[in-house]
């Protein structure tokens, strides 16, 4: 069984040797005679054998003849796996993880002292909480983005991301907790804000490093407390203990997951000591996460104005419209799954299309279908929670389109548009020009249209689908 069995010698240099299927395929799919020569050599054919059997002076001449005589074919490679394939259960889990902390507010609301209305007419301690939540979301969005970039940067990326997350989460939590606790006269609100910032930091660490189940486990005490509250009632101390338990569990899990990533890197470090290597790898610039932070702030503002818009417009005493926020957070899982769908289908379309124009049209179709699906989901949730659909859908569309644009790599435009929308909405409410529902509908609606146009343009580019 020596040498290339599939070339049957016939001693005649002009005749094409009897080819079997493999060599025929190779010759037909080859892009240049040298490719055939490389394959023949790798099968063990030497120049002497070629001279003896076929009369050609070398493998290259034989390959040239084979290339000329075989018809060209274009075999399709095996279908590539969809890189955007996602587990629907994971999206659902993440959606639940976004929604459950709301129960913490439900439990914690009882702990906040009722007292004089705060600035802008917010309930007591509300301003402190609002500021801390906004800062927390903005900071953690930026942190999560930087950590994802580091995570995807190859060997040692996971450890680099863990280091970044630990430093960032601790800094962010302290930046909120210390001033919050130092505000005189608002101890309960300050404690709640501090606990909330710690939870946000820990949740960011766990969500980036893949510890979703640990986070779910950490939320168990809060869920338990809210369930008891709905059924039987919970004493104040118990509520405080349960909330603290959640925060503590989350922080410990986050520390554990990040610590484990660092330990694994340390254990895998090679023996070579000297590191005189000059690295031409630019580490991600710190400014790259600014638009994500800005978007976090804007999204937080837009969501909060939904909840407290009534108070800002009509004065203290108006009930909080928290269910709109609830609808949004419940829909986050579906939103994430639809984002993956858009990217996956757009990539499939790219693989089919032969012209840029055709691709742009097809991509727009994919986008509109997914957006319609998300809005349908939100409308259903709104119906269940008895929310007026208009402002909810507008806000949902803005947030979803902005997230899609961020996923496609365009960060500044959606951040600026959302920030502008938030500022405009606050201005409208503050100057009493319009009611909360109308303000939200017009501003968010306008922003949504702009974002839709931008998203269609970006999705229609081939380079968005690397």
């Amino acid at each position: 069984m020596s040498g290339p069995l599939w070339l049957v010698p016939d001693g005649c240099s002009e005749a094409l040797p009897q080819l079997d299927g493999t060599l025929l395929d190779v010759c037909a799919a080859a892009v240049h005679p040298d490719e055939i020569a490389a394959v023949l050599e790798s099968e063990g054919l030497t120049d002497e054998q070629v001279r003896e059997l076929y009369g050609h002076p070398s493998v290259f001449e034989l390959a040239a003849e084979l290339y000329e005589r075989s018809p060209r074919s274009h075999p399709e490679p095996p279908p590539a796996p969809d890189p955007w394939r996602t587990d629907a259960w994971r999206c659902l889990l993440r959606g639940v993880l976004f929604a459950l902390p709301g129960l913490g507010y439900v439990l914690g609301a009882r702990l906040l002292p009722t007292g004089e209305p705060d600035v802008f007419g917010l309930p007591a301690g509300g301003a402190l909480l609002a500021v801390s939540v906004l800062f927390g979301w903005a900071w953690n969005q930026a942190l999560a983005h930087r950590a994802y970039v580091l995570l995807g940067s190859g060997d040692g990326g996971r450890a680099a991301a863990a280091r970044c997350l630990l430093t960032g989460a601790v800094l962010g939590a302290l930046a909120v907790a210390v001033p919050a606790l130092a505000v005189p006269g608002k101890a309960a609100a300050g404690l709640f804000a501090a606990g909330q910032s710690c939870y946000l930091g820990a949740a960011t660490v766990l969500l980036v490093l893949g510890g979703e189940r640990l986070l779910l486990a950490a939320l168990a005490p809060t869920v338990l407390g809210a369930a008891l509250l709905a059924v039987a009632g919970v004493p104040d101390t118990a509520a405080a203990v349960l909330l603290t338990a959640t925060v503590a569990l989350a922080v410990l899990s986050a520390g554990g997951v990040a610590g484990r990533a660092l330990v694994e890197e340390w254990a895998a470090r090679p023996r070579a000591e000297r590191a005189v290597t000059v690295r031409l790898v630019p580490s991600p610039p710190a400014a790259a996460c600014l638009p994500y932070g800005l978007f976090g702030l804007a999204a937080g503002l837009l969501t909060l104005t939904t909840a407290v818009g009534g108070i800002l417009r009509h004065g203290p005493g108006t009930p909080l419209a928290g269910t709109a926020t609830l609808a949004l957070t419940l829909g986050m899982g579906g939103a994430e799954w639809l984002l993956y769908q858009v990217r996956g289908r757009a990539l499939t379309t790219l693989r089919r299309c032969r012209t840029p124009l055709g691709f742009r049209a097809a991509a727009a179709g994919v986008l509109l279908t997914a957006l319609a699906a998300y809005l349908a989901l939100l409308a259903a949730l709104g119906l269940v929670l008895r929310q007026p659909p208009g402002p909810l859908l507008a806000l949902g569309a803005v947030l979803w389109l902005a997230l899609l644009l961020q996923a496609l790599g365009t960060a500044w435009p959606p951040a600026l548009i959302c920030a502008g929308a938030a500022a405009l909405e606050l201005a409208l409410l503050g100057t009493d020009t319009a009611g909360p529902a109308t303000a939200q509908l017009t501003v968010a609606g306008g922003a949504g249209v702009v974002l839709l146009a931008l998203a269609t343009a970006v999705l229609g580019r081939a380079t968005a689908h690397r």
Partner: protein
Amino acid sequence: MAVPLESLRYCADRVTLLTEGTYPHSQGGVSVWCDQLVRAMPEFDFRVLALTGTGREPLTWQPPATLGEITALPLWGPPPGGRAPRGRDRRALLTAYEGFLTALTDPAEEHRFAPGLYELAAWARRDRLSAALRTESAVRVLHRRWTRPGLPTAAAAPTLHDALIATDLLEHALRPLHAPLPRTGLCHAVSGGLAALPGLAARDAYGVPLLLTEHGIYLRERYLGYRTAAYRRPVKALLLAFFRLLAREIYRSASLITPGSDYNRRWEEHGGAAPHQIRTVYNGVDPQAFPYAGPEPAAPVLVWAGRIDPIKDLETLIRAFAYVRAELPAARLRIFGGTAADAVGYRRRCEDLAAALCGDGVTFEGRVPDIRDAYAAGNVVLLSSISEGFPFTLIEAMSCGRATVSTDVGGVREAVGDAGLVVPPRAPEAMARAALELLTDPRRRASMGEAARLRVIAQFTLRQTIDSFRGIYRELLDDRRSAGAAHGTEAVS
């Protein structure tokens, strides 16, 4: 009075080693050879410009104290910095890029490759190239080129995705042009292909001579690699045309080409190198470091040593051993060596095959701290690779005075000559017959082993390799100095 080394090196000539995926970040034959060069010639100021994967790979070689700066340039991972050009610059760059693509897609325009490449290199020196190749316009340029009627690729119906993939692959391939180029001394590319790109650019911009050593033929390996890659034909055709024309340009520009064996000359001459440019320099080992391995083991033992990888074709080895064992039930096969990280699955398959065919006759010994013990552990050393340059394990085994049975690939026949048996690759029966011949004839084995060691001492010593390269370096550097003087410019060295 001894002159301190530092002052000697102050006026030492600089040699920039250009590597890809080897020294000093990976193990392998080429790495061993690079390390030999750097350690044995402290009178030169060696630097390394290494192309790596992500840029975060740690060093796996302890660099000698005489080695200067090691620059690692990642081919994958985050793109090099720089902003895409605008306005007139952008149009100029895209026109240059279109000309370059014309050379790659139209067989009649291949002469435009070199001017196009050097123009792109100039843009890369201004930190503009990678960023420009990542824009949508670059993809459109390629797509327009491809869909021109009459070109061979139009028949393959290239999609937009193909254009995206091909542009990305080209962008990664051209990243070495962003490296800080050496301006003095000479460049020594330890393989063809992308590693030599900075050398081409340095020669074009600053006149730095380029020396090319080919242990294996880069273009040939790319052809074989792309056969199993999941790219459609247009992408494959474009990239392989790039590598082919790049090889041609490298051969044209190199002052000297030193293949590791005469086997490699064929591809070089076919690829456009002039015969007078090519000078074979074989790999070498230090015969004192690899002395006679001592008495053979009592039982018949076959030994294989190396890094476990599919290209070593251990399956043929195990099958051949099954035949040997049928004749000689007392025979054993010992496989020494670590496993490459991406070959763990392959090793497991080999272990399963060994267990199925030979029961407990085959042992995988893993890494051995001193490779000489591996050669000493056997009566005959086997090599079953389907592709080799000029294998170190073979000449080390020969230096240890062991008889060898190897496959006729690459420079193996030139290394072994008459001092070992050579069989066709992928031929377990032939390998088994050769091994049995040697195992059953101790006198022949002994005389062959002796002849092998004498052959290494005569032709393949480390000193000879180093002396050859030292002479080559001096020759190229003196040529450059005299060329500089002849043009009236002061030679900077």
